[in-house]
């Protein structure tokens, strides 16, 4: 890794260090500290740039302070965070269990589904699982539970003796013998029939089923109803100008796959220090950057609770410092949201709480820097964004099957639930009074981070909802970031390639 850097420095060292200092000098007035939990960020002041022409970069440092006519204005946007629903502040672990969160979820989605029933099958009676009578057609609403043969259990880890051949951990635990059970507060019933495919659904989904009890005490499913897409607010006026939100994930600073040059190119591009005027003009249209998880990789072996030697101490904090430098560069010019991910120094269970500001002494000084929760829910110019760092979709990928990743995203919207597998297979906080993953209103942009490859499509709902679904690839492996146009939800990628050997 360090050899990469060396090569890079010898190739473009001068230019870059100049650009770097110039930017810092132009914006080195520390803004007042900002409370990250405040809901409304004031409209951001426009950041200004010179038009740096790549060949004339060395002059930039000199001209940085004088503002002249060549200036390109960065566009502004209106930002509103709605993360408070994902925040855990006063809630503590006091012996509560997971039954409440299932109970609340069932209650929320069932109420919703009940309101849909008159339009679906008004002639059928609605029963509880206990009220089933053999042969009588009816509708039951409840939480699905999937019996899975291959599902790894913590019990087998503890109770089985170490086997001679280590267990292979498959990345998908779906098996043809899996079967679904529907549960409400009153009881459980086994589901039969071909309508309901166990490979699609997971434990934790709330659905309505039409069918009847068989003589064997099973429920033969004839039809199924999901909660469907939530209602959506109208997309703001489409005649406006192009403004972009950059979505990036999986920077993985400190991992072997991370390439500092690539990352620096990304930073330089969006801060407008790269390319010709045309490119800078497009960079000036970027109004928001979102880093969707897994920004650093820390050697987990160092965190076993023992006191560290000073060498290891720095090994631990080095990647975070490096990340802070990158973030500072961006925050100096553009509002940036950082979400915690699976690998980040944050808590494990969803919703993950904002990364602590003490990790980012540099960037945290800017009021453009926001440390957010995962999942993250916000509006930019009234375009509604909802996204996660990927855990919810990755977990669905382990416990169910779909044609592609986007289908999982689509399903979670239709199920009205961001993370149905939590808490069953996905760690989550044992909420007692709410289910924050219930999707109340439909986002315009729904993204997940840390996917293997970039994918996107438009999902259209029956009530005119239009959702841009995006899988953000891991930047450290692909060098790809995603640009979303707020005007029309169009989407394209930014690719940064670094071929050093040639």
């Amino acid at each position, binding site marked *: 890794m360090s050899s990469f850097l060396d090569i890079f420095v010898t190739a473009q060292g001068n230019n870059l260090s100049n650009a770097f200092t110039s930017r810092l000098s132009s914006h080195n007035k520390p803004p007042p500290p900002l409370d990250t939990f405040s809901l409304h960020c004031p409209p951001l002041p426009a950041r200004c740039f010179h038009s740096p022409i790549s060949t004339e970069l060395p002059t930039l440092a000199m001209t940085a302070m004088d503002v002249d006519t060549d200036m390109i204005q960065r566009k502004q946007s209106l930002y509103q965070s709605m993360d408070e629903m994902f925040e855990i502040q006063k809630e503590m672990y006091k012996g509560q269990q997971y039954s409440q969160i299932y109970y609340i979820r069932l209650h929320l989605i069932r109420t919703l589904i009940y309101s849909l029933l008159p339009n679906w099958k008004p002639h059928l009676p609605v029963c509880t699982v206990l009220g089933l009578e053999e042969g009588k057609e009816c509708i039951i609403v409840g939480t699905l539970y999937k019996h899975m043969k291959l599902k790894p259990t913590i019990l087998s880890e503890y109770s089985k003796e170490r086997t001679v051949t280590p267990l292979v951990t498959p990345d998908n635990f779906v098996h043809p013998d899996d079967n679904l059970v529907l*549960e409400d507060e009153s009881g459980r019933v086994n589901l039969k029939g071909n309508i309901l495919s166990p490979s699609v659904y997971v434990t934790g989904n709330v659905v309505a089923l039409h069918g009847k009890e068989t003589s064997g005490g099973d429920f033969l499913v004839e039809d199924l109803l999901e909660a469907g897409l939530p209602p959506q607010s109208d997309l703001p006026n489409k005649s406006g100008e192009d403004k972009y939100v950059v979505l990036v994930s999986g920077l993985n600073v400190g991992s072997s796959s991370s390439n500092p040059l690539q990352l620096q190119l990304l930073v330089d591009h969006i801060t407008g220090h790269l390319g010709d005027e045309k490119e800078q003009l497009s960079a000036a249209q970027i109004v928001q950057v979102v880093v969707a998880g897994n920004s650093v990789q820390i050697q987990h072996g160092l965190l076993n609770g023992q006191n560290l030697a000073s060498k290891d101490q720095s090994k631990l904090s080095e990647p975070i410092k490096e990340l802070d430098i990158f973030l500072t560069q961006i925050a100096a010019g553009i509002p940036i949201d950082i979400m915690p991910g699976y690998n980040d120094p944050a808590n494990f269970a969803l919703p993950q709480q904002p990364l602590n500001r003490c990790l980012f002494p540099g960037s945290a000084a800017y009021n453009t820097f926001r440390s957010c929760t995962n999942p993250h829910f916000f509006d930019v110019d009234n375009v509604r964004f909802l996204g996660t760092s990927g855990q919810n979709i990755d977990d669905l990928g382990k416990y169910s099957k779909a044609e592609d990743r986007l289908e999982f995203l689509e399903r979670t919207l239709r199920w009205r639930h961001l993370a149905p597998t939590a808490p069953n297979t996905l760690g989550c906080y044992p909420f007692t009074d709410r289910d924050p993953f219930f999707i109340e209103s439909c986002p315009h942009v729904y993204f997940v981070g840390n996917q293997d490859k970039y994918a996107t499509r438009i999902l259209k709902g029956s009530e005119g909802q239009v959702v841009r679904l995006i899988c953000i690839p891991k930047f450290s492996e692909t060098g790809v970031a995603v640009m979303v146009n707020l005007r029309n939800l169009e989407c394209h990628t930014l690719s940064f390639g670094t071929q050093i050997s040639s």
Partner: protein
Amino acid sequence: MNKGNSNNRKRPAQQPPAGPPPPKHQTPVMEEEDMDEDVFIQQEEDLVNEDELILRDMEDREALADRMRKWKRPGLSPGYLNQSQSIVFQQLEIDYVIGESHKGLIPNASGPAAIIRIFGVTQEGNSICCNVHGFEPYFFISCPPGMGPDDISRFHQVLEGRMREDKRNNSVPKCILRVELVQKKSIMYYQQHSSQPFLKIVVALPTMVASCRGILDKGIQIDGIGMKSFMTYESNVLFVLRFMIDCKIVGGNWIEVPAHKYMKTTKNMSYSQLEFDCLYSELISHVPEGEYSKMAPFRILSFDIECAGRKGLFPEPTHDPVIQIANLVTLQGEENPFVRNVMTLNTCSPIVGVDVMSFDTEREVLLAWRDFIREIDPDIIIGYNICKFDLPYLIQRAETLKITEFPLLGRIRNSRVRVKDTTFSSRQYGTRESKEVTLEGRVQFDLLQAMQRDYKLSSYSLNSVSAHFLNEQKEDVHHSIISDLQNGNPETRRRLAVYCLKDAYLPQRLLDKLMYIYNYVEMARVTGVPISFLLSRGQSIKVLSQLLRKAKQKNLVLPNVKQQGGEQGTYEGATVLEARAGFYEKPIATLDFASLYPSIMMAYNLCYCTLVTAEDARKLNLPPECVNKTPSGELFVKSNLQKGILPEILEELLAARRRAKADLKEAKDPLVKAVLDGRQLALKISANSVYGFTGATIGQLPCLEISSSVTSYGRQMIEHTKKLVEDKFTTLKGYEHNAEVIYGDTDSVMVQFGVPTVDEAMKLGREAADYISGTFIKPIKLEFEKVYFPYLLISKKRYAGLYWTNPDKYDKMDTKGIETVRRDNCLLVKNLVTECLHRILIDRDVPGAVQFVKNTISDLLMNRMDLSLLVITKGLTKAGEDYENKAAHVELAERMRKRDAATAPNVGDRVPYVIIKAAKGAKAYEKSEDPIYVLENNIPIDPQYYLENQISKPLLRIFEPILKNASRELLHGSHTRAISISTPSTGGIMKFAKKQLTCVGCKAVISGKDQNQTLCAHCKGREAELYCKTVANVSDLENLFGRLWTQCQECQGSLHQDVLCTSRDCPIFYRRKKAQKDMAEAKVQLERWNF
């Protein structure tokens, strides 16, 4: 009831009964006591009353009755009713009853006689009760020389007279029906003449055999002969067994009664669908082969009851009501039960797929269950601990409630269920107290008894047994909660019902999984005893049954040797070659004698009837080529003079096993495979138990001459093998290395041939086995089976190694005698030993194993050990004051009772505890504490105790052969120097302690103006690193918390209800508790960063 603790309801095996035992059980090791017990048919009027009562009851519960009628057995074919069709059925249970002789079948009989009842099921699923008439009890005595026909009739009269002295025998017109002169031969000792005169004494009733034997043993006065006592023959054979042997019926086989040879009974005595009378001579018993090896579709009922105990007390039938009974009925051979129901006291919300029947009174619950049993008519009743708990509880409860009509659960109309205490003791299984509940016509199969008999497990609770065999954890509801659930609402009662159903379901799953029905039926067929004997009696009845059958073919009779209590002959047992302890990194070949003891008996023709007494040896002057002198000095004739019966039995058993194994290979159908596998296993066990039978000093027919000869031959062979191996496989004889025998046990020899690869060792092993087998008399055979590589030999009967049967890949890790499963060890020992062996043997990484031990010890001392690994569990078998010595778990139970009587362990429960730090000089028993209490109050554990008393011995055992100075290296290294102790949150000095904030980084006290800081001035700048550590801890705990609690939700089978389970047997129980607590603490730590 709460099966989590069910194993504790019984005293642990191998312990003498606590109270003074009833006098009749005082004989020390009694194989078993076989006594016939006559049951008389009750009077007619009783019967009528009973029926009326039932009818009245039925009207009251019409609806219920309708529900049950659905499950009736299939209707009878008309061919049975008009007696034009032969009846073919599989019998499951045989007993007898005393009733009037059947005038229609035996016209000239009079007075009461024994009627044998065979219960069974036809292929169509009809239940059968076959009353067999005309079979008479009898036994033999040797006829004194010179007894003529007149003497015999005089003898008959005298004996009849003596029998009459006992008033009990007055009910019959004649006690001694006949005395016949027959030609027989005693099985004991080699005899040259072919037969001798014997008297066959036929008596009226089965119990008279014993009383008649008593009279003859003491001696009777006969005119012309004088006072004489007689040796009796076959007078100790149970009447039912006698009948089976004479009719060639074996347990669980198919019996045919030809058309027109039976009479349908006019007044049914039983609830069976088809009841008929026939003569014993008309029965056709089918050999269980081919078509007749199948199984009839019997009905298997699995049930469980729940009782509402009072706080802090174990439920007692005199006080505590039965609140639920869950039932599952399965047809043999089918996968799913066809009836699932639960009877509850008070209302209960419905359960999908289960028929929930709720009643207002306990009386109704009990009677509903009785009616259910009658309608369903199960052939086999199974459950977990039903024989000791559920059934007796139900019956005693009915007694308390004065429900006289309840205990009619058997198949006989007017016969009440009887409960009696029994003690079962045998050398093999130890002494066990049990209750015997007679349910006529139904086989009881208590899975707990079967488990204790067939498997060595660390715990026999239903929970741990199902975890072991079914890989399923069972929710365990503490019995103190049961009453609360019952007193709640229909929902909580439903919760309880679901739990109760699961307890009824698991025994059925176990039965299927372990193929108990197949295995036990096959065992009954092979050994010829009724199925019910297999669980309630020891091994010897099985051998006796085979011996009697064989003897009958050969016209031999077995003497009834007077049991000589107390005087135990001993003889030298098997040999064990000196173990050369060490860690062997070259392949070790294992040569095994296949079925050594049976082979020896066959090879040397060892039997009762081939044994030559010292006296006879002189008298008979046998040529030396016709006799074998065994290494223990006994003489046995060779088979050319007299073929032994035992060798013949063994030959048949082993031949049958070979056939079964060959068929097993061919078989495709899993059911057929199950039957065949059950059979070959039964045959193997039977063959091995023959030797034990001859050595059981207080058994039916002990003969120490045989058993001591067997072991002496065994010893000789092991020595012989060792010598041959070490002589032949040497460099002098052209082999590359000198072979070395490093260890030998009863029937195996471990050889190190010195070759480096498994393949070569296998070749040499095979060569050695063939070569040495050639030097033995057939069928003794030395087989080469496996290679251990590497092999860690600790001492005799203790070793571990990788087990190879083919040179490419090892099969498994095999360990013997390394205590990893002992109950009074904590889990840490097991984990540590297993992991070390794994690293040493499989990874071949001795330094890795050492490092692992060091890390573990360091974790222990640094207080980083998971508490659940340190929990030790012991059964509380009697109340505190009854223990002579103070014991840790008893003291703890007392202390817990003082804290909270409701949740404290009771007699019969298992008490989990950890050893905590206590004042200097505190006794070990004072240092025990409840793990939950420890968790909640941060009480420091005592790592030294665990180091010294738990892990050091097993570790040193493993490492001593490998490491020099193992003790110093492992237990006293630098890793033992740092210790950390948690601060207790209660008690003692902590009341005076003041809490102060410390720096997260360096633990320096933060004082003064920095009060609200997380870090001290010195550690400022290390925020990122220190925060990462704190948050990583939270993150790990969250992960654990989520996985643990969702697992428990999974086990309890509900997402929307809180987890109640308190199963301390569950490996994650303490972890779950701890995760919850740690999580709360870690969150507080994390909060400190939100400055």
